Structures are given as structure tokens and as C-alpha cells.
């Protein structure tokens, strides 16, 4: 070939390029990332990767807007904290909750609580908050007024009257964050109010705020001030994974690939805890053949090696899930002991094949074919960019190929994926089930016919379109009983149905990705002390902030 100077230049460039790339790969392998606390932050200051302001932080501290700054959770407290890890209810601004009858909830309001501007907090603030949510339904993110009829103040209690028998509604209503009447009553339109100078009852007040970082300072008037040992919190806008590992963070909520090799290796006092936060499941479209056939669903379920799916998705950090809807080990005491092997369904090709046979599918030339001899192809829908779900789907594809099923993967953008779920425009879809902390809510969201809509009409929940008179009856009983033992029994019955009928097929647990450093503070939740989930962004964070101690080294 005739060589012009131009191609010679190109070749030289290419050669130089590959040399340089090789050199980078070689040196890249030997680089160790180390991390130490930022020396400019004091021993009583905590660096948290909790808020994500991209490109820059907007000063929004209205706790009822989805875009509120995360620190709103540290300033505006609920009546009761529902611990989503184990379902425990921690009395907070309400010192006591009573349900005298299934239509009434009575909150006894805590005495001695002050707003951060020094004014006293009282039952009137609670009533004001609820009334405001009624007037501006866009703020009612938890949907308290779906269940409430009215609210009144009686002495130091707030009495909520429900629309009907609805005991589980108390767990939704009690999570409402309370705001001060003396400030919010002067706001003309709370639904667009940014609340730039927040006044709350929580352990921290807003400190210095810039578009790239803000600080929270301990609230000296806090009603549990003696329990708050961390004086300042610093929340930067940018928390890339490299930042989290290298910049000496004390607390982060983030999945990091190879946690032991990155986060733990960066500093000996770095620890992690990943309790289950939900069950990653496959939703079958129950209105479509063959997914409406229980035997077919059983076949799919038996053909799965759930451990391999979970390992592929979460690098072995999360356990396979049983078919009970319960998050183990944290919900162990709610688990129906009659269900064998804690609901785990072991892979069995023979059982898969016999189930498929009952549904009319048989093996022919290595392919699963229906009665007309047509080979079966299934489409699994997952959201684009959720790489852990995609790895799970890839593992499932391999496992189902072994029983003769061809799997196609549809990966629409997250918004389009949501739309597909709502319209029922899928065969099997990946999704997360449970994790609200309330057994009733977990099952009602996925199984209640209240959410049933025909295909093509948008559903808000129960995307698989499950309908069962028996489940509805159990859920209905749930709404009328205040007896804990009875609630437990009802939970058992729902688990049994979930196990037998496979309305969705549980795969593995989705994690709550807690990363902690014990260098400055100790008392983080852990497998040994699982008092709450490691989330930075819900009311349970208050449990952690009032639980931390200074470490020996920092004293």
C-alpha cells in the first residue's frame, strides 16, 4: 500500500495511544485509594453523603415537596416514627398513640417540646398541620386525608376521626411531619413555599447554606438535646462514589461496587451494613396468558436459582428472598412458622417441567413449546440504567434458557418503565415489593383489588392486576382489629396466599446501603444492633442521630 505522510502520522498516533493506554492500565492497578477525615472539620462535625444537589443545591426546606432538601427530615419530626426495618413504632412528638375504636386515633402530644425559635410546640400545631394538608392536597404526600374525616384538639391530645374502620391508617397518619402554626399560617400558598429559613422541632437547625454545601448545627432547644452528640452536620451537594471513598465521610447511603475492596480498604474504621429494604421481584401480568396460570408461574419459579440471581445483581451482598413477602431477618417474628424453609423455593428442573406440563407446555428439541408446538418467548421489562436489576434479568435469562424459554429484555427509560407498569403493558416486569414497615401496607399495595384497574387504564399500585375475594376479606379484617396477635395471624394468612399463588415472584432482597465510619462517631445500626435502617433521608434518620456517641478516639 502506498503510504502517505498522513497515514503514517495516524499509525504513529495509534501506536502511541495504545502504549499510553497500556501504561495507564498498569499504573492504575497499583494505585491505592486512602481516606481520612477532612482535617478542616472538627471532631464534633459529621460529613454526610445524604443530599444530592445537581447541579447545585436549591434552598428548599418545605418538607412536603418531593424536592425538599434531605435535612428537612432532621428538622421536621413526625408524631411517631415507623421503623421500616422491623415495623416498630417509636413515640416521637406524640408520647402515646391510642386506638380506642377502629375509627379513632388519639395522639397524646409530648410536653416540653419547643420550636427552634423558642416558641412552644403544642396540639394546635398538629391540628394546623393536618388542616393545611387537607386544604392543599398536593402537600399530602403520604395521603393522610385519604383515611381522615376530621381532626380536633382535646386538652393535650389530638383526636383523629377516620372515614371508616381503618386501624392500619394510623401508621400513615402518624408519619406526618409537623410544622409550626405561627409561621406557616402566614404563608399564602404552602404548596409553592420554599421555606428558606426553616423552624422545626428537630435536633438540628439550618446553618451556613451555599449552593454547593450546607451545614446543620445542633438545636440547643431540642427536647432530647442530651442525646445528640454530633454538634454539626455537613452535607455537600456532590457525593460521587470516588468522593465518598476518598473524602473521609462519616455516613453515606450508597451502593458501592466491591465495598470491601473500596470503602473498607480506604480506612480501617470504615464499616458497612446492608439490611434488606425490599424484595426485588418479578411482576407477572396476571391478565395475560400464560402468566394467569398458576402452574405456569410455579414452573417459572421452580426454574429460578434465586441465590445466583441475587449474587449477580448485588455482588453477593444481598440474600435470596423467600416467597413470603417478609424481609428477613428483621421481620423474623412476623414470619408464618408454618411455611416451610422460611419460604425459600429451591431450584428444581423436574418440578419446573412438571408444572409447565400441567400448564400445557412441554419440551421439544430443547425448547419449551405450547400445545400447538409454538416455542415460548417471554419479555421481561426493567428500567434503563438500573444496572443491578439488569444483571438479575441476565441471570434469569440464562436459568430459564436451561428449561427451554427464550427471554427478551425490554429496557425503557425509568419514566416509560413506570408508564408500562401502570398501564399493564408488560409480560413480566422487575419491581420492588414491601419495605414500608407495615405488613398491611406491603400486602395491600400489591394485592388489594382497590388498586385493580383493567389493562390500559393506569393503576397506581398492584401492577400485576391481582384480584382475590379472600385477600380482600383478610385486608378488610386488618382494618378493624386493634389486637396485635390477631394482626399477626392475618399476616400469616396473607403470607400463605403469597407463597401459594405467586402473585409476584420474589427474587432477592434490595439493600439499604449504609456506609459508616467509626473514627469520630460510634453507635451506628449494624447486624448486631439492628435498631433501624441506615437511610439518611427518612424520619428513621432521627433514630440514628439521637443514638450516636463520640468515639473514644474523638473524645
Amino acid at each position, binding site marked *: 500500500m502506498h503510504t502517505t505522510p498522513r497515514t503514517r502520522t495516524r499509525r504513529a*498516533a495509534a501506536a502511541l495511544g495504545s502504549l499510553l493506554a497500556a501504561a495507564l492500565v498498569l499504573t492504575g492497578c497499583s494505585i491505592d485509594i486512602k481516606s481520612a477525615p477532612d482535617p478542616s472539620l472538627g471532631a464534633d462535625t459529621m460529613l454526610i453523603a445524604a443530599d444530592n444537589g445537581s447541579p447545585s443545591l436549591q434552598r428548599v426546606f418545605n418538607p412536603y415537596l418531593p424536592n425538599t432538601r434531605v435535612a428537612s427530615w432532621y428538622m421536621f419530626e413526625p408524631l411517631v416514627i415507623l421503623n421500616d426495618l422491623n415495623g416498630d413504632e417509636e413515640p416521637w412528638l406524640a408520647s402515646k398513640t391510642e386506638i380506642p375504636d377502629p375509627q379513632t386515633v388519639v395522639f397524646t402530644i409530648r410536653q416540653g417540646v419547643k420550636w427552634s425559635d423558642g416558641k412552644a410546640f403544642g396540639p394546635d400545631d398538629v391540628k394546623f398541620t393536618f388542616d393545611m394538608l387537607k386544604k392543599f392536597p398536593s402537600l399530602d404526600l403520604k395521603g393522610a386525608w385519604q383515611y381522615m374525616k376530621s381532626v380536633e384538639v382535646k386538652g393535650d391530645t389530638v383526636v383523629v376521626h377516620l372515614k371508616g374502620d381503618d386501624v392500619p391508617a394510623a401508621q400513615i397518619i402518624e408519619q406526618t411531619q409537623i410544622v409550626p402554626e405561627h409561621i406557616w399560617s402566614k404563608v399564602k400558598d404552602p404548596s409553592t413555599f420554599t421555606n428558606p429559613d426553616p423552624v422545626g422541632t428537630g435536633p438540628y437547625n439550618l446553618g451556613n447554606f451555599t449552593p454547593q454545601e450546607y451545614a446543620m448545627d445542633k438545636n440547643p432547644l431540642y427536647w432530647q438535646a442530651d442525646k445528640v452528640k454530633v454538634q454539626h452536620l455537613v452535607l455537600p451537594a456532590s457525593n460521587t462514589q470516588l468522593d465518598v471513598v476518598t473524602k473521609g465521610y462519616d455516613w453515606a447511603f450508597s451502593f458501592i461496587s466491591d465495598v470491601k475492596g473500596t470503602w473498607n480498604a480506604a480506612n480501617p474504621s470504615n464499616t458497612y451494613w446492608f439490611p434488606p429494604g425490599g424484595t426485588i421481584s418479578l411482576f407477572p401480568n396476571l391478565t395475560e396468558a400464560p402468566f394467569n396460570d398458576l402452574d405456569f408461574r410455579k414452573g417459572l419459579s421452580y426454574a429460578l436459582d434465586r441465590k445466583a440471581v441475587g449474587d449477580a445483581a448485588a455482588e453477593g451482598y444481598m440474600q435470596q428472598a423467600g416467597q413470603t413477602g417478609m424481609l428477613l431477618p428483621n421481620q423474623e417474628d412476623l414470619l408464618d412458622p408454618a411455611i416451610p424453609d422460611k419460604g425459600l423455593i429451591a431450584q428444581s428442573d423436574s418440578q419446573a417441567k412438571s408444572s409447565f406440563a400441567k400448564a400445557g407446555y412441554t419440551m421439544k428439541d430443547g425448547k419449551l413449546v405450547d400445545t400447538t408446538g409454538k416455542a415460548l418467548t417471554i419479555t421481561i421489562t426493567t428500567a434503563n440504567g438500573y444496572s443491578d436489576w439488569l444483571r438479575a434479568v441476565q441471570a434469569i435469562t440464562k436459568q430459564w434458557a436451561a428449561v427451554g424459554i427464550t427471554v427478551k429484555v425490554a429496557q425503557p427509560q425509568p*419514566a416509560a418503565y413506570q408508564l408500562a407498569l401502570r398501564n399493564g403493558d408488560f409480560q413480566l416486569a422487575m419491581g420492588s415489593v414491601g419495605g*414500608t414497615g407495615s405488613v398491611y401496607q406491603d400486602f395491600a399495595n400489591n394485592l388489594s383489588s382497590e388498586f385493580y384497574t383493567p389493562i390500559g387504564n393506569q393503576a397506581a399500585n398492584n401492577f400485576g392486576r391481582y384480584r382475590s375475594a379472600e385477600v380482600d376479606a383478610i385486608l378488610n379484617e386488618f382494618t378493624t382489629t386493634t389486637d396485635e396477635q390477631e394482626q399477626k395471624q392475618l399476616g400469616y394468612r396473607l403470607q400463605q396466599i403469597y407463597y401459594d399463588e405467586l402473585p409476584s415472584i420474589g427474587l432477592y432482597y434490595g439493600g439499604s446501603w449504609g456506609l459508616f465510619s467509626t473514627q469520630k462517631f460510634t453507635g451506628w445500626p449494624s447486624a448486631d444492633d439492628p435498631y433501624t435502617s441506615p437511610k439518611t433521608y427518612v424520619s428513621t434518620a432521627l433514630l440514628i442521630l439521637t443514638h450516636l456517641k463520640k468515639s473514644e478516639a474523638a473524645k
Partner: protein
Amino acid sequence: MTYALRKVGLLILTLWAAITLNFFLPRLMPGSPTDAAIAKLSQNGPVTAATRKAIEIQLGVPDGNLLSQYGQYLKQVLTLDFGVSYTFYPQPVADLVGQALPYTLILVGFVTIVAFVLGTLLGVLAAWKRGTWLDALPTLGGSFASAFPYFWTALLLLFFLGYVFKIFPTSGAYGVTNVPGFSGAFIGSALNHAVLPAVTILITSLGGWILGMRNTMISTLGDDYVTFAEANGLKPHTVAIRYAARNAILPNLTSFGLALGGVVGGSVLVETVFGYPGIGYLLLKAVTNQDYPLMQALFLMITVSVLLANFIVDILYGVLDPRTRK
């Protein structure tokens, strides 16, 4: 004069077409802004039907059919009122754009001008001294560097200069403790933060200018008038700059006009890698969250600036080159 009028007419027509596309394209994306918000929330935990309802009320389901929405949109465009962002509710779109625009204009704009001037000069030099190391080095280096993808160069610089050697900050547009304003500390910190993204853009775009200029310059150098100028005994640098380069620069000038128009769009990849709060990053956020109001404002800004840059180049061409006026 008719030439200019014709160009203005064309500008108005393309503007209308761009504005219209700008309205309909985002709405062709499957899923609604509420779906996007729910998808984001559901990554943090279960989302109930009540939450969906509240968000729907908050973002407001648009009134009327697509046509009346389009009418309303045209009115908004004419009054430059872009409403409230969905992603950053309840922040007005104008505020968000106003915050991001200076960073992009200064960073990308400045670097584009530097890359153009430097690249063109190096290209002239390379063509004039072709065959020597002054040609080989910029040509080889330029084609080598511009072959890298933006984000790869960005990640390399970030990792080595930011994390390993800790010479430059790794993200943001200024130090976390600085408050934006005209203070020495802020400007110093902003410059320091701009180095890595600026170098990334410079490295990857310089080569194009060098090669473009060098190649046209070489063909110009073969033209008769250059030989004639040399034969007349004019000084070498006079021939190079006043005769050859002046004519060779026209195609590069066109690209420069277009590049300047594109500056407003920012540089999505570079801004994302460096967490730089400019227009590119904002655009990425808007698109991934189906934030129609924000997307509309940003796309409108980008198309209008590209069209205006085009228009100015067209008019300039008419002045510079009489043949185009016909």
C-alpha cells in the same frame, strides 16, 4: 439589501420550526413528568398511590388538548416566561437557567475562543513549515488528542490530577465554602475549579482547528497568487499571514461561528464528569426527569443561539465574499 432581507425571512421561518419541534419532541417521550418523579422516588422506597396523586396535583396535569397547550406555549415563548421547573419544583426555570448560564458561557465560551485562536495559529505554522517537527508535532498531537472521547480524557484528568496527585479540585465550580460574588477568593476558587474541565475541552477540540486550518492552508499555498507573491519577493511571513492564511481561514471561521452558537448548550459530558453546574448538566437533569418547562427553555436557548450564530456568519460571508450575495 435583498440578500439580508432574505436571510432575515429565513431566520424567522427556521426559528418558528425549531420552536415548534421544541414543543412536540419532549412530549413524544413515553411517560409523564409524574412517572419520572415516581421512578426517582421509588428508588428510595415504596411509593404509594397517595404520593402519586399528590405529585400529580403539584405538577399540574396540563389543561386542554395539545393544540391549546401549544398556543399557551407560544405565548410563553414570546413573553419569555417559562414557568416553574418540575425537577426543582417550585424554582422558576428562569432562575435555574440564570444560575447555570454564566458558568457555561465563561468556561465553554472562553475555551472555544482559545482553542480556535491557538489551533488556527498552530495550523498556519504547521502548513507553512510542513515536513518539519513544527508540522509533525501539532498534527500528530492534535489528531491523537482529538481521537479521545471527551469523557475518557475527563476521567483520566480527574483521576490523576484530581484524586491521585490532588493538584486540582475534583468537582463543582468553586470551593464549597465560597459564596458566589465578585470577591477575590471566589474568583480564584472558580478559576482553579475551571482548569480541569477547560483543559479537557481544549485537548479534545484543539486538534480539529489545527487540522482544518493546516489542510486549507496547504491547498491555498499551492494557489497562483501565493506563488506570485513569493516571486515578487515579499517577506515569507507576509505571504503566510496576509495572503495565504487570510483566505484559508474562511472555512474555519464558519465552524467557529457554529461552535460559538453551540457554546450555550454547554458540554454535557464534561460538565457531568466534573459536576460543573452549567447548562449541560442542567439539560441532562431536565431530560432524565421529563422536566418539560426546563427542557423547553434550554432547547429554545440552544437552537436560538445556533440559528443566530448561523445568521451572523451568513451576513458576514455576504460582506467578506461578494459571490455569496447573488
